[in-house]
C-alpha cells in the first residue's frame, strides 16, 4: 500500500467524528445539526473503508454504501421535519422546540 498507512486515515476519521459531535452539541439551527450529523456519518464511513482496504475484504465497502443510503433517508425525513416546522410558523431553534406538542 503506497503512501500513508491505515492509522492515518483512522486519525482523520476520528477527528471528523469529533468535529461533527461538537456541531451537534453546540449549534441550535436544526439544518446545521443535520449537516454536522452528515460529518459524523462520513467519519464512520472513512473508518469502514480504511479497514476494508486494510483487511483486503469487501464487506466494509458494502457497509459504507448501506450507511450512505441510511444517511440519505435521514436527510429526507430530517428536512421534511424542518419544512414542516417552518410551515407551522415555529422558530427553527432546537432549544425552543423542546416540546413535542404542535
Amino acid at each position, binding site marked *: 500500500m503506497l503512501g500513508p498507512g*491505515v492509522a492515518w486515515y483512522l486519525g482523520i476519521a476520528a477527528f471528523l467524528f469529533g468535529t461533527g459531535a461538537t456541531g451537534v452539541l453546540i449549534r441550535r439551527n436544526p439544518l446545521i445539526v443535520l449537516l454536522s450529523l452528515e460529518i459524523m456519518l462520513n467519519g464512520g*464511513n472513512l473508518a469502514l473503508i480504511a479497514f476494508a482496504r486494510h483487511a483486503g475484504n469487501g464487506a466494509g465497502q458494502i457497509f459504507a454504501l448501506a450507511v450512505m443510503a441510511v444517511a440519505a433517508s435521514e436527510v429526507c425525513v430530517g428536512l421534511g421535519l424542518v419544512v414542516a416546522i417552518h410551515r407551522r410558523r415555529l422558530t427553527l431553534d432546537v432549544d425552543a422546540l423542546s416540546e413535542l406538542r404542535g
Partner: protein
Amino acid sequence: MIVAASAGGVLVWIVWVAAGFACLASGLAVVSFSNPFYSALALIGNLGSLAVLYLLLSAEFVAAAQVLVYAGAVMVMFLFVIAYVGPRQETPWAGGPSWQTVGAILAAASIFVEIIVAIGLKAGGRLSHSEHVNAPFGTPGWIGRLFLTDHLLAFEITSIVLLIAAVGGVILGSHARRGGEEVTN
C-alpha cells in the same frame, strides 16, 4: 523500479496531505459558519475531499457514489431547503463561550482522544502492514457481484429503508400543508 515506486509513494503522500487538510478544514468550517448556506457549501468541499481519500484507499465505486449521492442529490436538497426556509443567521460564538459550548468541545475532544488511544492500544502493531489487494478491488463490477451474492440481504433491507424514508417524507409534507392551512384560517 524502486525509484518509480518511491516517487509514486511521495505523490500519494502529497495527495493525502492535501485531501486530509481540506477535509479537516472544511469540517471545522461547517461547524463554525454562522450562515447555514455557507455551511452547506463547506460540506460539499468536505465530501469532495473525502472522495479523494476513498480513491486513495482503492474504493473507486464508493468514491463515485459519494460524489453522485451526497454532493449531487443530498446537498442539492439541503441547499433547496435552506433557500426555502431562509438563511437564519446564528452567532454561536457571540458573548464569549458559554458553559454549554465549553462542555460540548470538551466532550468531543475526549471522544477524539479516546478513539485515538483505543486504536493505538488495541491495533497499533497490526495496522502497519495492510493486505495486498488485486486489481478488481473496489471496482463497480466487483461491488455489484458482492451485493448480489454475499450481501443480498443488506441490499434488500437498504431498499426497504429508502422506501420507508420516502413514504415518511411524503407524509410529513402533506401533514404540514394541512397544518399550515389551519394556521392561516
